[in-house]
């Protein structure tokens, strides 16, 4: 049910754009107002989420340790998986964010009886996750060419690398294929593996369908229904320079693509996609295992009632004396 529902929502968005632009001629709404609103929602929303997490206290320093602790000088400590300094923590976070290291932990190949080399099935999860996220990042960065004149060299370079294989005209980007395959695999996991299906919510299918729709509409626009790039750039440059314009003759597919992207941006702060920001705030990863060296202060610590030694001795004094255990008050 969740699957159909999520899918239907994506289709509905496409239909609404179709009706809105073709039927009602609301070009201005879809090309100008919605993008601004979506971006605003994204920025305010994500900032709010991060701010809100930041307001929550970190009463204890509770890193999950994944290697040998810092200890006697002749024992080698694992500085990344069990960091005891800020450098270690930064290293750990970088590996976590850039390489999904914890996810990779799953996939370590192991040798069991005999020469059979065995890989966990999550090797594919890691691979797909990396492929998906990096393609997404590259695609996002490539899009900057629509928002800049002249296009900065790094972006041009990125485009060059991404289209390294020089097939077809317009050039085919590698990431376009990679992201589709990765998305399809991630979808397969959710739909085809009972265990993952069991834990999935509509809000897990939705981003996948949405991003897939974005990617497919983008690909369609680039290779099949070639839209007027000059016109598109007029719109995008208009948006960034706050002098929005809408040239005529831009295909409906562009409006669909743009609105889907806007949906993603607007949806972002309300969904699990905020994991992008949350991962940096995760106390089991971003703290050092150095409690025995540096005190961590609990900001909401409050006084509590305890049992004092005096109470203890008062209760047991006679027995202690009889057993020859020293007491404070004879």
């Amino acid at each position, binding site marked *: 049910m969740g699957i159909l529902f999520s899918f239907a929502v994506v289709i509905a968005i496409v239909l609404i754009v179709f009706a809105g632009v073709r039927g009602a001629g609301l070009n201005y709404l879809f090309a100008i107002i919605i993008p601004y609103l979506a971006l605003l929602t994204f920025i305010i929303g994500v900032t709010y989420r991060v701010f809100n997490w930041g307001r929550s206290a970190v009463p204890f320093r509770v890193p999950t340790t994944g290697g040998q602790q810092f200890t006697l000088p002749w024992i080698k400590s694992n500085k990344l998986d069990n960091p005891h300094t800020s450098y270690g923590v930064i290293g750990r976070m970088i590996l976590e964010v850039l390489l999904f290291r914890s996810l990779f932990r799953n996939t370590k190949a192991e040798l069991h009886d005999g020469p059979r080399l*065995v*890989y966990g099935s999550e090797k594919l999860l890691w691979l797909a996750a990396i492929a998906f996220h990096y393609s997404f990042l590259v695609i996002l960065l490539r899009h900057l060419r629509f928002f800049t004149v002249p296009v900065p060299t790094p972006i041009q370079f990125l485009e060059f690398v991404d289209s390294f294989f020089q097939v077809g005209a317009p050039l085919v980007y590698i990431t376009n294929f990679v992201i589709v395959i990765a998305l399809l695999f991630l979808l397969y996991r959710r739909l085809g593996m009972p265990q993952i299906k069991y834990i999935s919510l509509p809000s897990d299918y939705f981003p996948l369908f949405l991003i897939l729709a974005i990617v497919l509409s983008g690909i369609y626009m680039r290779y099949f229904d070639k839209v007027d790039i000059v016109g598109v750039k007029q719109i995008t440059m208009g948006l960034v320079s706050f002098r929005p314009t809408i040239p005529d003759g831009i295909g409906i597919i562009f409006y669909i693509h743009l609105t889907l992207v806007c949906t993603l941006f607007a949806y972002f702060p309300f969904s699990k996609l905020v994991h992008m920001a949350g991962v940096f705030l995760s106390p089991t990863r971003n703290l050092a295992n150095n409690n025995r060296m540096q005190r961590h202060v609990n900001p909401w610590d409050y006084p509590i009632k305890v049992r004092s030694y005096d109470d203890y001795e008062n209760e047991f004094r006679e*027995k202690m004396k009889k057993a020859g255990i020293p007491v404070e008050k004879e």
Partner: protein
Amino acid sequence: MNLRNFLTEKKTLILSKWFNLILDTYPPETAKFFRNQDDPFRNPVGSTIFVGIEKIFDEIIKEKTDVAKLSIFLEEIIKIRAVQDFSASQAIAFIFSFKDILKDEINQADLLQKPATKEFLMDLHDFQSKIDLAALISFDIYMKCREKLYELKANEAKKMTYRLLQQAKLIVESPERDIN
């Protein structure tokens, strides 16, 4: 056709059917995971069952089945099922699935249609009684496992306070926790 040869030939197929029938007794989300045979340590339940049924199979089709060995192999699986929400009958029912598969395979190969030799029928009977025997043993093993659990419960509490029990006279107020 010699039944033993027939079964040896079909071993892989029979085992995989048997394995699947056993896994069907688990929730589907879990069954899929238990089926995955990559790593005996990441999936101890699935691999113990998988390895176990093969050993049981081999032992049963032997001309001279070693009952002691058979028990050990059965125990490996039943021990697991004895702590997994199954009733006694459910815990050992997997033995009967073997019989069903056997029947299906023989039917499919039409082995009984062809004039079955006396030898074949005797063998068949022999196998079936062995499986019945395995079922009976399984029931004993199941009961043994359950009894073991009760025994462990009792012993553990004693061990935790062993030293105190040894010198009970020193305890002024006996510890609050039940020793049983």
